């Protein structure tokens, strides 16, 4: 990949990666750091990564960088093992987007990542499997569980105006 192609990749994918990471970790500074680290890694491998594969490479690198950071943060704060799947939405919301954002933030990390990759970037199961390192069937299971959780969180359709 040439430097021009690298710069083009920045223009094309930086927003998507930032969005994906920000939705996962909900911290702008950390998301910025992850994006920066990701592109630094790409620049170091600019000779080996082809332009056609750059999006996949960037998302894979960003995902793993984010996972490393999350693990590190969990070790530091001791917040591991919090059960999140038992939440249920009961309030009246006026905006479905608001409910979904809330629900997404309560999803387990793996489920959230695969759903975001699927919905935001439109990746196929096998592509998500390559990015996350999960098997294809695991990806399908996480998507199923994630959607079930989101559906239960939304609750009754009447509650959403």
């Amino acid at each position, binding site marked *: 990949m040439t430097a021009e192609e690298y710069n083009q990749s920045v223009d094309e994918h930086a927003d998507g990666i930032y*969005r994906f990471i920000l939705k996962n970790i909900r911290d702008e500074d950390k998301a910025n750091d992850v994006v920066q680290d990701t592109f630094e890694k790409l620049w170091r491998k600019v000779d080996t990564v082809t332009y056609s594969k750059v999006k996949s490479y960037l998302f894979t690198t960003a995902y793993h960088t984010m996972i490393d950071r999350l693990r590190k943060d969990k070790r530091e704060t001791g917040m591991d093992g919090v059960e999140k799947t038992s939440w249920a939405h009961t309030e009246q919301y006026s905006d479905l987007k608001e409910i979904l954002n809330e629900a997404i933030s309560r999803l387990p990390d793996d489920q959230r990542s695969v759903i975001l990759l699927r*919905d935001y970037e439109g990746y196929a199961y096998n592509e998500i499997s390559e990015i996350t390192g999960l098997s294809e069937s695991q990806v399908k299971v996480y*998507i199923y569980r994630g959607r079930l959780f989101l559906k239960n969180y939304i609750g009754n359709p009447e509650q959403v105006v």
Partner: protein
Amino acid sequence: MQYINEHNYESVLIDFLEGRLTETQAEEVRAFLQIHTSIAREFDLLQSAEPLHQTDDIFGNKSLLKKTINDQYPSNSNYQEFIIARLEGDLTDRKEEELNLFLENNPEYRKDVILFSKTFLKPDEAIKYHYKKNLKKRTPAMRKRLLFLSYAAAAVMLLFLTLYLLPDRQVNRPAGIADNKVPATEKTDAVSTEKTTPAVEEKVMQKQQNKESEIKKKVVPEVKQHIKPKIKSGAATPKTIPESQQQEMKRSRIPMMRMNRIELARVEGGATEIQMQPVHSTYTILGNKGKNSPKDFLTLPQLATKEIKKTLYASNEPARSSEKLSIWDLAYAGIKGINSLTENDIKFDREYDEKGNVEAVAIRKGKFEVEAPVKK
């Protein structure tokens, strides 16, 4: 107490074999084996045994055992899986029909279809990464290109400055300079324009017009004679224009003035330098319609300067110096450009002395203010 004895030697020997003992412990084990020969034989057998390796044999028909959603039928226990699969586009047409049938028979599950359809997220396009510029890289080639562009921009700027900031000075031609290629009459013209008094310029114009009309008188009959035989009798005859109309046409003509030539002037010491004549361009445009006085003529740079100043100072202070673009005008234009690009309101003020020269400049932005006197 001994680390190895007859009761624990088996586990210690395995640790010894796997290299998990310290050097002291290992030394003790070796001493123990020398004393207990039967155990040493047992240890030799243990050493010769090869560890078991994982074989590469795999079961190749896993896919036959796997079940997908398309191998099942929608039921009360798996209908949600079916709904999600349909929304994800994983169902075959046949399975989709089966699901529709199931939902028709179980209308209470229809709301689940609506709820699941709402779980699909849409990317928030408003979220942008704002530091893309920091991520971008420049290679030496790109740097070179940028440098080249900078040089090109500087060259254009220099050209611009040269064009607009050249003083509109008159040439004081040293006496005795003669341009051999220029006819005597034109030489007189050139010299006469040096003093640029209106009366002299009018004279020059008059001479010029006379000369042109003389040439016309000479040339036109010759042309007519040459063309005449070719015109058949009865063809379109030249139309005579009434004298009053001719006068009117003459009056309505835009008067033009020839560009004064750049002349090589010999300076003291024999060297030659290019001296620019007053910049009345090739054909200058009349500034004030109806009057033919040379005062009304504007050179192209003067016209451009006037237009630029009009644009620059349209709504603000009028330009003090109306003839030239000064460096302060360029600075003002620059600040204006920055303001329009960054949507800022930076002000660039100047203070003038009695003669109209810039005495001090100030840059203001809200409470921030920088003021500096101008060195003469």
